[in-house]
């Protein structure tokens, strides 16, 4: 296949050459915040994860698309990422599960791509300079560079309102009822909850009163995109619920819960995006290999809750627990779509919390 030349320019002026693939936008330019993901498999789940709203995903593994796509692996009804950067996009998929190849999927779901890029150089650049805004496309270097110069990152951005479900829906048929607030919830997360509970997924804008009115046994705060510091309106509703009902938060849900508990968040240089991050449960000492996707993290000094999990690579807070308030949350993705299943026990922990069992805090609180 003959592809059109494309170019990728970061806000700091770094230029990368490639070829246009996937959806080709009319103006030939796509902007967003560039991040990299190191997972070796699970590209479809990553592309359809709403937490990537506003971002362009660089896959560090060179071959993407090898096993095609299947509706079974969608994490949302549509992708919200701005685009993808790939070294080698496979033309021919091979899997008994595959419905079709990745590229027609990208075209149909309007995800632009740039392929043939030295993604390792791009990754090293992002590692050194942090996640950067930028642009790519086939519009020509000048046009792309101009777009890159004005491209925005995710700081201060509320993408939640963009990706959250417009209307509530129910899943599962368990005895206990969980209201899941959708800040950008992944399908696998809903599935994991629905295996255990009756779940009502509600829009992010749902107020505490409206949640109360649903009579939940527990509240679940989902993952989602963007800067938690820009989401004060959601935090306020959580504040009303804390102490009243058991709460479990994941990723953005964890950051919002921490904020509701009086904490603050900060932006990591290039975030954690991959399926291989070692996290230690401080209460048991056990190590979980976890899927992660976050650019922001909770500042431990600001917390009134107890830190329950830490990232062993860099010490970042990965979980917190407030036993008296019957709340806990993790920064990483125990639902694992994609990623290892090591941390799925946390859904059981939520279940036992709803059964009335107490949460345990680690002895080590820092």
């Amino acid at each position, binding site marked *: 296949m003959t592809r059109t030349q494309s170019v990728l320019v970061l806000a700091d002026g770094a230029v990368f050459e490639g070829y246009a693939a996937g959806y080709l936008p009319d103006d030939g330019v796509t902007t967003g915040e560039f991040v990299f993901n190191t997972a070796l498999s699970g590209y479809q789940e990553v592309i359809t994860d709403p937490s990537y709203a506003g971002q362009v995903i660089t896959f560090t593994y060179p071959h993407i698309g090898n096993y095609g796509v299947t509706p079974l692996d969608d994490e949302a009804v549509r992708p919200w990422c701005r685009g993808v950067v790939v070294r080698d996009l496979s033309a021919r998929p091979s899997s008994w599960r595959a419905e079709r190849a990745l590229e027609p999927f990208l075209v149909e779901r309007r995800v632009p791509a740039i392929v043939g890029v030295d993604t*390792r150089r791009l990754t090293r650049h992002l590692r050194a300079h942090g996640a950067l805004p930028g642009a790519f496309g086939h519009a020509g270097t000048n046009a792309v560079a101009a777009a890159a110069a004005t491209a925005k990152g995710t700081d201060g951005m509320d993408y939640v309102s963009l990706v959250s479900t417009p209307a509530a829906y129910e899943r599962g048929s368990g005895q206990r009822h969980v209201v899941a607030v959708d800040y950008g919830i992944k399908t696998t997360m809903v599935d994991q909850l629905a295996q255990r509970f009756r779940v009502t997924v509600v829009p992010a804008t749902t107020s505490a009163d409206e949640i109360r009115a649903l009579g939940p046994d527990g509240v679940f705060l989902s993952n989602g995109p963007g800067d938690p510091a820009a989401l004060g309106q959601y935090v306020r509703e959580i504040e009303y619920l804390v102490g009243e009902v058991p709460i479990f938060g994941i990723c953005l849900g964890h950051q919002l819960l921490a904020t509701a508990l009086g904490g603050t968040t900060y932006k990591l240089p290039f975030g954690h995006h991959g399926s*291989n991050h070692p996290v230690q449960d401080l209460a048991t000492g056990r190590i979980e290999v976890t899927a992660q996707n976050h650019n922001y993290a909770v500042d431990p000094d600001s917390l009134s809750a107890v830190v329950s999990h830490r990232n*062993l690579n860099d010490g970042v807070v990965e979980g917190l627990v407030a036993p008296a308030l019957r709340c806990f949350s993790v920064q990483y993705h125990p639902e694992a779509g994609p990623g290892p299943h090591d941390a799925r026990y946390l859904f059981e922990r939520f279940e036992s919390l709803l059964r009335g069992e107490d949460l345990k805090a680690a002895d080590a609180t820092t």
Partner: protein
Amino acid sequence: MPRRDDIHTIMVIGSGPIVIGQACEFDYSGTQACQVLRDEGYRVVLVNSNPATIMTDPSTADVTYVEPLDLSVLTEIIERERPDALLPTLGGQTALNLTMALVRAGVTERFGVEVIGARPEAIETAENRELFKAAMADIGLGVPESGFAHNVAEAIEIAERIGWPIIVRPSYILGGAGTGIAHNAQDFARLATEGIAASPVGEILVERSIAGWKEYELEVMRDRHDNCVIVCSIENVDPMGVHTGDSVTVAPAQTLSDVEYQAMRDDAFAVLRRVGVETGGSNVQFAVNPSTGERLVIEMNPRVSRSSALASKATGFPIAKIAARLAVGYALNEILNDITRSTPASFEPVIDYVVTKIPRWAFEKLPGTSSVLGTRMQSVGEVMAIGRNFAESLQKAIRSLEQGRPGFAPGPNREFADLDDDTLWHRCVVATPERLYALHEMLWRGASVEEIAARTGIDVWFIDQMAEIVIRERELRDADVVNFDARTWRRYRQWGFTDSQVAAISGTSVELVRAARTALAPVTFKTVDTCAAEFDAATPYHYGTTEDESEVRSSNKDRVIILGSGPNRIGQGIEFDYCCVHASYVLRDMGYESVMVNCNPETVSTDYSTSDRLYFEPLTPEDVAEVVAAEQAACVDGARVVGVIVSLGGQTPLKLAHTLGPELVLGTPVSAIDAAEDREHWSTICNDLGLRQPPGDVAVTLDEAIEVAERIGYPVLVRPSYVLGGRAMEIVYNEQSLRRVMNNLTGAHGALAREGGVSATRPILLDRFLEDAVEVDVDAIRDQSGDTYVAGIMEHVEEAGVHSGDSACALPPQTLSQSVIATLHDYTRRIADALGVVGLVNVQYAVKNDEVFVLEANPRASRTVPFVAKATGVPLAQIAVRVMLGQTLASLRDAGVVPATTPNPDYVSVKEAVLPFNRFPDVDTILGPEMRSTGEVMGIGESFGIAFAKSQLAAGTGLPDSGQVFLSLADRDKVGGLAIARQLLDLGFTIAATVGTAGYLRSNGLTVTTLVGKVGLADLGADAVTLIADGAVQLVVNTPSGGDAMVDGAQIRHACITHGVPCLTTLNAGLAAARGIADTRTHGWRVRSLQELHG
């Protein structure tokens, strides 16, 4: 709680000689383990019979025993050293089996030795297929339907229940020996019989064959807190049905969705937990049905394996090192990642490149074998290549094999172009070493990707990638390559095309291609860093590709580049890796940066911690030139590339010497290397020096060869120039045989066709063969001042005519007179002077009636360098490197590094070759001028007899101390055989002999107890094969002659292999065995460590 302090001394068992299925990967893992345990402050006691290993260097462990890996020997060592713990998981199946034997014999209990790394119960569960199957059923995992049989009747009963096709696997075997697939009752009965015989416990698994399913392997680590990580996933390109060791494999898995991969990961952890591997590395193999995703567990190894070496090199995660730490109590999160040095080992490596492994076979050395690959591993080595994508890594891996192929796309010389379509389909469907190249031809002819995938069972993704390479190849054929722009160059480079490939395909000169390409698409070197660039890498482990950015860091230190020896093959194996690793060690000691280039994933040289920088690259002129250029470019502040060492890695780097600037070649100049190889030049040197050579000459054509042979007289030794390991070497006794041999060598599809063929610059060498001469090897080092140190003189046990690599040899020499030894010293010095050697030289001699003939000289490291080093305690390779860099032997003598005179130890060391015949039942075991051994062992004793007896035990067939000896001797050997028979009778053996031999012995007054008739004809006496099968014979001495007896001999030797009876095929080996048995009887054995011997 990290390190255990309740244990102090830890015993590590190595894996013994290099055999098919167990190669240098265990030197790599064992060496890492020893280093780590010593770093942790433990006293390490090491046992291994293989002298060519780094692990048996006296500096690797505290106490090093080069002794046979045998229950009684190990028991004695344990009694002597009283280890607190025994680590069995790093020495392959050999160490695991021996550990189980020690446990069963109560030795570990008696001496209070704790087995660490894997508990005996866990080993039992993983290794015993019945227990394993039950364990998998416990945790709800599927295994192929199967049953166990201990005899053929049982086996048939199970087979009838399961239905064809059926796979037979013997219990407790390594590398799948004795395994095979049967499609009918007849094949099945034969396989079952062989399998039961091959299994040490006489048991086989009869199993549903799932040939054609996709095959995967996960490398798992677990610590004692039950933390588990996957280090690497590996996908086989060849579907189930071909042994993993014989499969082309790729890391990471390419065609598994995350959903499937994570489920497999969960299963792998469940397997480890159920089997009970508490700490360390294991691998779990899976088969996946390509159309339904059904997943079955095939097997697991509760130890470090060949694939863990591959996984370590593929990811930068050092499995053996970490397994050793886990075994002494550390948790994964208490160990730092070697490469990032900032993050813990409790993570899962991710990579941003593709790794391809291709095995290398030696069928050309084993005439009579079918070269069809199956469930029994047959390869002798492997290469690994790293590329940014599959195509690049595949093309790189193919050129790493050094078989004359430039990559997957061969250019105009398509080797299967002549085959008709049907034959070609057959070559694609049946797995053989050439399958990949047949696939290329099929794609070239336009067969569809779907059809090829369907007919071969190879995943469509891989075939599609290959098809893309073929499309690029077609484009290049008509392309105006010298006018390519940067993007176009980049595109072809990224599909793995080299300059020489582009030149050949497009019909352009390499020089033009290189000139056009270099500026627009320079080669860049990326880093293997375990984390896909997420963290900074402290360890410079590089691979070449063509991208935007190169990551080689500049430095201001002078550096030396060492070219490694590439894939293991018969004739070029671990001995040369040993030399290269030593070079790296000494260069670092001397203050140079050492830079290693190699592509063999099994080795210590490709451990990224061995050298200052590692380039995991093919050893081709082009790839090496890029590394040299990158190193030169990375020199700052006046630093320089001092030179390239080409003389320590065998023939591979030596062949590259011509492609480097002469000023870059360290040590012996290229011209001297050529002088030794060039027949006429070499003869002139010998004549000038007045040294006697067997008469000889060179020939390019058959007519010339016949003329030469007539002139010098038969028998004639025929061999090509520039080959190692006696490749294609034969002794011919008449013109008819000479015609056959020449045809084989020079034909269009001859043995040398792909290596450049025969030409005036690469002629065939013909020499008069000296019958009944003693062969001698001398290793020496000469410095720039002309001083020479003769390091060791080795006398071969087998007579001249048996390849030196297949012959046993003794140091010091046992039968040579003082005057002969003095002559050998003198000749060696003069030859080294005349050639202008700087560094190592090996000279081979034949001694007949006290007269010394020079056979050949090789101004490079020989196969015997590590043996001599261990036999004399002098680090030869290191001295050679010092000398190459300008130090003098005189200064090294002053420094105490080189002894004043050639050591004359008061003990005898015997090196014995280990041959792969148990893998190739159809190959005759007679030794000849073509080398066929895969490895070697060393026996050390107070006398030659004891050292020889130890070497036999170490090689796998210990000599008996009582019973019956079966003698079947060629006429010319009967006189000599008398001495053997007499000595054995004196030792209380009874004699069985063939009619002719028996007649001769009886006529000389000796008692022959059993008369043996022709095989299959019991009229004249007992049937030899039956005697061997029934265990009525404990030792066989069978020297070959011609005619019918030859056929009989082959059957006798085959029976010995099958039933594990020692079989000696030369008279001298028979004599040595008799001495060995006598000395063992008289003096008994003692074990002594190298540290004691070298004082």
